[in-house]
C-alpha cells in the first residue's frame, strides 16, 4: 500500500516547520514506521542541520531530479533511528531548480517505498511552496499564537484549498500558557475561530528545543521535555490514535480539555 505524503507548511517563516518535520518524522519512525523526510527548501536547507546529518550528505534532491544521482544513493539514513531517512535539498541552487511536476513525480516514487513522506515546505507562497505541495496528499499547517502567523496560515489554507489539498490539520507551536492566561498571547480558541481547521496538536514553547536543534538531535528522543511529549502525541494522532491533549498548565485542565474536544467537531 502506498505511503502517505504530508506537507508541513505555514506561510510565515520561523514558526517551526523544520523542527516539526524532524520531530514528527522521528516520532513516527520510533513507532516503527518507514519514514522519509524531504527537504523542499532549496537554497536554504535546514532539515539536515536539525537532524544532525549534514556531514553525511553526498547527493541532494536537485541532483536526483536532474538525473545526476540515484534516489537510493541520495537518501541519508538517520544515525539514531532505524527506518528514518532524509532526502536533503540543494544548498547551492535556488527554488526554481525543480518544477512542481518533478516534485510530484519524486514524491510518488518515495510513497512506493515509505509509509510516510514528510515534506518540509519553505516559507512563502511562491515557487518553493508550490513545489512542496505538488506531491502531497495531506497538509499540516504550523502556526504560532501570534496575529501575523495566523494571518499567513489563513492565506495558506486558502491556497491549499485552491490546489485541492482539503482538510489541512493545524499544529499550534510555541505556546506559552502563562502569557495566554495573562491575556498577552492569543489563546487556542481565538486561533481556531479564524482558521477553522482541525487541531492536530499544541506544542509548548521549550528552551530545550533550541539546544537540541543546535546539537542536531530531534527533541522527541528526549524523554523529559514537554515539547518532546507533545510531538510524540502528535505522531500517535497521525497514526490514528486518540490521544488526549497535554495538560499545559496546572489547574484549569478540565476547562482546557473540554474546549479542545469541542473544537474538533463539526468543522467544515
Amino acid at each position, binding site marked *: 500500500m502506498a505511503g502517505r505524503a504530508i506537507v508541513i507548511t505555514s506561510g510565515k517563516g520561523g514558526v517551526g516547520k523544520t523542527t516539526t518535520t524532524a520531530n514528527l518524522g522521528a516520532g513516527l519512525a520510533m513507532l516503527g514506521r518507514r519514514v522519509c523526510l524531504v527537504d523542499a527548501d532549496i537554497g536554504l536547507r535546514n532539515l539536515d542541520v536539525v537532524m544532525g546529518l549534514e556531514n553525511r550528505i553526498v547527493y541532494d534532491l536537485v541532483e536526483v531530479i536532474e538525473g545526476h544521482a540515484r534516489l537510493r544513493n541520495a537518501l541519508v539514513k538517520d544515525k539514531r533511528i532505524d527506518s528514518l531517512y532524509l532526502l536533503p535539498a540543494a544548498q547551492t541552487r535556488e527554488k526554481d531548480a525543480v518544477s512542481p511536476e518533478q516534485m510530484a513525480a519524486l514524491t510518488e516514487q518515495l510513497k512506493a517505498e515509505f509509509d510516510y513522506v514528510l515534506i518540509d515546505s519553505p516559507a512563502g507562497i511562491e515557487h518553493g511552496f508550490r513545489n512542496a505541495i505538488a506531491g502531497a496528499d495531506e497538509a499540516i499547517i504550523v502556526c504560532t499564537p501570534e496575529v501575523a502567523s495566523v*494571518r499567513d496560515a489563513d492565506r495558506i489554507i486558502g491556497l491549499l484549498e485552491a490546489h485541492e489539498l482539503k482538510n489541512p490539520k493545524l499544529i499550534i507551536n510555541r505556546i506559552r500558557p502563562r502569557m495566554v492566561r495573562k491575556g498577552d498571547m492569543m489563546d487556542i480558541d481565538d486561533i481556531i475561530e479564524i482558521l477553522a481547521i482541525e487541531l492536530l496538536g499544541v506544542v509548548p514553547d521549550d528552551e530545550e528545543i533550541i539546544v537540541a536543534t543546535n546539537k542536531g538531535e530531534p527533541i522527541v528522543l528526549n524523554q523529559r521535555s514537554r515539547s518532546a511529549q507533545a510531538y510524540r502525541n502528535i505522531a500517535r494522532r497521525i497514526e490514528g490514535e486518540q490521544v488526549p491533549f497535554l495538560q499545559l498548565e496546572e489547574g484549569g485542565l478540565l476547562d482546557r480539555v473540554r474546549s479542545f474536544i469541542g473544537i474538533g467537531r463539526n468543522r467544515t
Partner: protein
Amino acid sequence: MQGRDAVIFRGDRAGVSVCLNPDAPFGVVVEELRRKLSAARDFFAGATVRLEAGNRTLDAVEMRVLHELIRAHGLTLAETAGEALAPAAAPVAQAPTSAPASLRQALHVKRRARASNGAVEEAARGGAFDLEDEPCLLVRRTLRSGQRLEFDGSVVIVGDVNPGAVVVASGDVIVVGALRGVVHAGARGNVNARVIALRLNPTQLRIAQYISRPPDGQEPHPTGPEMALVVDERIQIEQFEP
C-alpha cells in the same frame, strides 16, 4: 502598430479619461485597453473614468464592448455624450450570479429609462429601492486571507470574512458571520449602500467614497449584529434591527 498608442489614459483635475486613437482599428483598441487595464488594475480600482472617442464614431455594439471591458476591471464609466444604447450590467464575480443576463439587462434598461439623461452615478443615487433591482450574489463559505470577491450588485456571505480578505460590491454587503477583513460597499459610488454583519469587526470599512477604520488601540467587541451606513457624510455603525 506604429505611431501613437491605440489607447491612452489621461489624467486631469476632473479625473481620468480613456482616450481612443481614432485611427486605430477597433480590435487593436480593445486589445490594448484590456492589456492596459489589467496592468494598472490596482491603480485604477474603483475610479470613475470618461471615455473619449475623439472623432471616431462607435456603434452600439462597440460601445457595449468597451463599457463591459471597463466595468470588468472594476472601474465606473461616466457617460459619454450621444450614447446609443445602455450597456448590460456585467458582474465581476468569482462565482455564478443569481439573475440571468437577459433579466439583468432588462432591469438595467428599465432603471435607466426611469432616470433622466445623466451620469451613471445619478441613476445609482436615489435610495434603497435601486439596490433591490440589482443582482445579488450568495456565497456560502468563509473568505480566507488573500481572497478577493468583487461583484456588481449586492453580496451575501454565509460564513466569515477573515482578516486579509477583501469584498468589493456596488451594492450592499451582508455577512452572516464575522466580518474581519476589508469591505467596500457601494463601490461604484452608491452612498446608500450598507454593510451588515453578525460580528462587525473589519480592519477597514468603505462605503462609496468614505473610508473608516476602528479607532487605534481599541479592540472593537461587537455585542450583536451591526450595520454600517453613511449618515451626514460619515460612516456610522448602529445596532442592526431589521
